[in-house]
């Protein structure tokens, strides 16, 4: 049963400044409980804005550190989950359910990636 890292990518410039609405948070809580009861969810969290983040870069043998916000990226990672599913189709189905909880004014891309084992 492969594990999947799902990266939730949002456009920080156009995302609601106040974050998820209380209704959305409640729906998220219900779905999280459902995914946990299905024995699927291993770990999940939202991330603080990229303004609090930094990028550490390695190129030509030199290190550089850039503090956020990452304005040059259209979409940045806003959250993640690690789940264990029978296959990618199942991981995608749970991801669809998570995205469908959001109001229409959200634009989100969830990237579902299998974790390499071994």
């Amino acid at each position, binding site marked *: *049963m492969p594990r999947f890292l799902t990266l939730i990518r949002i456009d920080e410039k156009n995302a609601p400044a106040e974050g998820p609405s209380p209704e959305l948070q409640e729906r998220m809580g*219900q779905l999280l*409980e*459902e995914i*946990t*009861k*299905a*024995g*699927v969810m*291993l*770990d999940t969290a939202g991330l603080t804005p990229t303004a609090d983040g930094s990028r550490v870069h390695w190129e030509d043998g030199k290190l550089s550190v850039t503090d956020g916000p990452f304005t040059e990226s259209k979409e940045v990672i806003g959250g993640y989950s*690690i789940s*264990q599913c*029978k*296959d990618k*189709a*199942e991981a*995608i*189905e*749970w991801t669809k359910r998570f995205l*469908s909880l959001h109001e229409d004014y959200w634009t989100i891309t969830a990237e579902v990636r299998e974790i390499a*084992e*071994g």
Partner: protein
Amino acid sequence: MTADLCATTADPSGITADPSDTTADPSGTAVTADPSGTNTAIETVFRIESPRIIAGVARIVRDVGIAEELAQDALVAALERWPRDGVPDNPGAWLMATARNRAVDLVRRRENYARKLAEIGRDLSTVSAPEEPADPDDIDDDLLRLVFTACHPVLSTEARTALTLRLLGGLTTAEIARAFLVPEPTIAQRIVRAKRTLATRNIAFEVPYGPEREARLGSVLDVIYLVFNEGYAATAGDDWLRPSLCEDALRLARVLSALMPKEPEVHGLTALLELQASRTAARTGPSGEPVLLKDQNRARWNRMLIARGIAALGRAEAASSGAPGPYLLQAAIAACHAHAYTYEETDWSRIATLYGLLAARSPSPVVELNRAVAVSMAEGPAPALAIVDSLTDDPALRDYHLLPSVRGDLLSRLGRTTEARAEFERAASLTRNERERELLSRRAAEQS
């Protein structure tokens, strides 16, 4: 479309189509005319929902076999309608409502209508219309009923295992047969007989309360543990590990922990399995040979599973009142290993103490054997050999390869190499696992 329907329904024992029959082609090209991949999506939704649907329907029809058939009918209905009308907003609720409505119809059509109606009148009144989602709390209760029914003591251990993996783990008959290295018809027959036994013996579709609850819960936990163990140290075959079985068992344990948050032993089992699973990657060498605990590269232990295991152990301890149960104790032992960054740091005296508590709580020669290993590490091989020697006449261990294996190790450490070689050779002749046999033969050859 028709081809897919056949694939799904032609095999009455398969919960969904064989993966090779579906349109989930890795290249993304549909095998049949299913350009949008709708059938794959439908089958995925069904696989996710099927334990809940079977459980919800079983409460109405009071028969897990019939419940499974009605769930299959709902899948067929979805395969017919969704590609035409589009996938509903809440596909799980649609499948559940469809299956439950069919269940109600079936009950109404039964000849013994009046008697049945009296029996299930309460349930009929709570069946929602298709557009109403079922109450999540009700579904959880139904799932628990399904767990306890599939693991009912009236069934043989093998039947409980097969039925649990099938109804709750969502495995096909073929997958279960592959996992246990037995022919598919054997498993199919086992499942059919199990369902028949539950029906003819009139086993109540209920979660047990009162005095029998603890024993019945123990039976459920033992089934999950057995499945995990079969994957963790395969009793037969060429592979040292069959990780898929471990993962299926771990998923079932996690589900049960979420459904029964107040039961310390459920959290104890989950903690034990999370911690055992954390070592999977380190337990096998480059050519598939087993790597013993002391030789494992602990950097390869999965820290996330260790963290989950420690957290589950904390929940078990918080929920526990009175003497700790056997799974909690075994999880505490596994946690001692997880906390040691090197083999040398292992707190063997604590492990020996925990094995002592475990032996007092549920005495067994295998527990004593493990206690001997811990004592040998904490105090030396001599006192451990005294424990092992008291076990050699135990009929339960007569053909258990780990007894001569442990005894050989203790003798070797005491410099009694001739006796040690004989023990390792005996252990090698007793194990049914090829990989383990190679390891034990090598240890026998090393004694000089």
